[in-house]
């Protein structure tokens, strides 16, 4: 049951009805039931894994808190992390690991074959595993007390708006909300509805529309010229932003409707003036998780190497980010590229700051624009690696972009127009939110009629040019 399906709309309406019919102190029970029904509807057998992860994290966190002996605390902590990570490692990486080992052995003329594992990846496992790990670390470090109520803890791990694609929430944000009566909050619910509408617009009108074009180009790389491939490559970051950003907004909005506040996940990343700022605006819940639980501890371990310690921490953190995104070499390279960009910035930050201050560049519009463009280009170049099937294709893409010219592939002209139109609206909204915060209110206008017309227009646009299914396709004839 994906968010953009009609069944999800029916599901959320039913959950909302049951949720607010029940007394506030017991609404968490409705949410827990709904979350497990939601996950069960995707693949029943994987509920067992979800339960396993929840129980391991719950009981071992209690054990960590209960025991006074440091050695025992450590044992429980390591056991919890290992057992929680095991399903993720098994389902996501074992197949690729065995293939990688076969490949490496073949390089030294050793022919060994491991049985091919056709494992179906439990949906959401990357997300809820990180949530459970974060909780365990927080308890171990004494940042929070363990949750005593198994049901509320299970809800924290399995909360249905977040389980599939995040945001990756923290115990200190969610558990206090679950431990208080969950009351209807008009402002929160109103915000939630607006997030949902804008989320659907981002996903259906922008992301899925761009995907039609990008898929048509990237699935036929040898048949397209460099101009078309470059254009598709420039569009791809917007597709991912609108897709994951849209999904996050629907998740956050659904939670808001249910009376729960959730952290934001994106903050207009294409207005970042550096890669480090970009990663403070893009997939914020994942980056803050990696910062708190990977980057900072590694920095501490390598602190004697000073700046080079930071470089090591960055490379390891983004290596982990890469493999978390996908169990493929391309994602690892993608992650390492981010690490390289960020390491360069970390090593040169003082010199750059001196230059910027000397020539007062920060206040110059042309400089800021240059920074936006350059940061975007760096991200686009790295996203090519993440988009393609293998590194060979990535090099092929770079080669074609640099050497092959020709007319731009348009595909179905109507779809091309809708794509640009949707993207323009998204960018206009982001520009307004970034640079004109207190001006040009439409969606947040104090005039109710204007607000209503604005939201009605978005809904009408979704109906008119949203991509609802595979009924739309770009028929590419060579």
């Amino acid at each position, binding site marked *: 049951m994906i968010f953009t399906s*009609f*069944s999800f709309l*029916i599901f959320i309406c039913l959950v909302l009805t049951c949720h607010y019919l029940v007394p506030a102190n017991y609404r968490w029970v409705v949410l827990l039931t709904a979350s497990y029904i939601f996950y069960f509807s995707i693949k029943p057998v994987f509920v067992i894994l979800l339960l396993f992860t929840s129980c391991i994290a719950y009981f071992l966190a209690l054990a960590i808190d209960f025991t006074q002996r440091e050695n025992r605390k450590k044992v429980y902590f390591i056991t919890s992390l290992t057992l929680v990570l095991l399903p993720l490692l098994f389902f996501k990486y074992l197949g690729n690991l065995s293939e990688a080992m076969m490949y490496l052995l073949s390089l030294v003329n050793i022919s060994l074959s491991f049985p091919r594992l056709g494992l179906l990846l439990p949906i959401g496992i990357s997300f809820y595993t990180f949530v459970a790990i974060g909780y365990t670390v927080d308890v171990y470090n004494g940042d929070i007390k363990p949750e005593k109520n198994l049901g509320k803890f299970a809800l924290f791990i399995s909360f249905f708006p977040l389980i599939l694609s995040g945001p990756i929430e923290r115990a200190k944000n969610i558990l206090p909300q679950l431990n208080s009566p969950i009351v209807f909050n008009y402002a929160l619910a109103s915000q939630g509805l607006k997030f949902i509408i804008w989320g659907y617009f981002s996903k259906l009108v922008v992301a899925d529309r761009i995907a039609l074009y990008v898929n048509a180009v990237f699935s036929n790389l040898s048949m397209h010229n460099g101009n078309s491939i470059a254009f598709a490559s420039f569009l791809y970051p917007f597709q991912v932003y609108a897709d994951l950003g849209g999904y996050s907004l629907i998740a956050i909005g659904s939670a808001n409707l249910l009376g729960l506040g959730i952290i934001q996940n994106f903050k207009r990343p294409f207005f970042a003036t550096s890669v480090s700022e970009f990663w403070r605006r893009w997939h914020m819940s994942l980056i803050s998780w990696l910062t708190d639980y990977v980057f900072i501890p590694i920095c501490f371990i390598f602190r004697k190497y000073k700046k080079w310690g930071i470089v090591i921490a960055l490379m390891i953190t983004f290596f982990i980010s890469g493999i978390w995104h996908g169990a493929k070499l391309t994602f690892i390279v993608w992650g390492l590229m981010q690490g390289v960009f960020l390491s360069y910035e970390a090593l040169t930050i003082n010199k750059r700051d001196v230059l910027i201050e000397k020539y007062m560049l920060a206040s110059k519009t042309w400089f800021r624009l240059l920074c936006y463009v350059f940061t975007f280009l760096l991200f686009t170049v790295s996203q090519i690696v993440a988009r393609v099937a293998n590194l060979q294709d990535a090099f092929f893409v770079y080669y074609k972009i640099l050497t092959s010219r020709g007319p731009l592939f348009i595909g179905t*002209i*109507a*779809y091309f*127009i*809708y794509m640009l139109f949707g993207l323009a609206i998204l960018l206009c909204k982001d520009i307004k939110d970034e640079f004109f915060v207190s001006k040009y209110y439409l969606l947040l206008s104090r005039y109710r009629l204007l607000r*209503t*017309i604005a939201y*009605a227009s978005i*809904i*009408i646009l979704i*109906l*008119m*040019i*949203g*991509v*609802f*299914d*595979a*009924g*739309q*396709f770009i*028929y590419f*004839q*060579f």
Partner: protein
Amino acid sequence: MVIIILSDIILGNTLRYFYFTEGAGLHYRTTYSIEQTTADVIVFGSSKANHNYVPDIFEKELGLSFYNAGRDGASIFYHLAVLKSILKRHKPNFVILDFAGKFDKSRESYERLSSLLPYYEKHKEIRKIVEQKSPYERIKLVSRIYPFNSMLVTIIVGNMKFNRNRKDDQKGYVALKKEWQVDIDSVNVQSFYEIDKNKINALREFIDCSKQADIQLVVVFSPIYYLYNRDYTLDLLHETCSEKNVSFYDFSKTEIFLSNKKLFQDRSHLNQNGARVFSDMMIKILKDE
């Protein structure tokens, strides 16, 4: 909510009106197939049908009127729906079903039924077929805009004078003009897959409807420019046609096409030269039938 409902009704009805006043293009050809054609010979199919059968050649040789009801990306569900609509008002002498696609469990064939949503209201005979798209289709169709999703630009262009005057098709047939440059190679075709019974049943129903209307039906797999060992889809087609006692002609291994890339625009579609050669071959078959 009121603004949304009113906007939906006004815009939806406007789109509906202008959809059916388009003078040329894909929508017009679908509307013509469903509501207007009275041709003696009609070919059904997807893009292969649409680009492989030249009406003028058929009309000249057979002395019968011919319409190409093929549509890019259309599935057996689409062909069945169009046939049912045609049979409500007209009985062709010959029907050619150019089959492309598979009988597998992919959702794509169902989702592409969105091309029939504009006809749902007026054509009761296609409703059950369209409702296979999703269990919530009837609810979604409460929206007046929904059937015309992503058609705005095409509807506007379709109603413009220059579009009415330029005829991109010839009695439904759209000619392809390029020549394929790549030499023939082998393709891995799925030897087995899990069958979607709905698709097999749709094919059977297509055959039954034709027979009940006393129409001469021929099922064809038109030429391709690649080699394969064995194609499960073709086996299933063959099996179903034998079971229903319907002639099936398989051109996938016809040498004249496999040895001449210049007859193709790409691996699956004949260009205008190839279409002429193929149409001549089909005429001989129809004459024998």
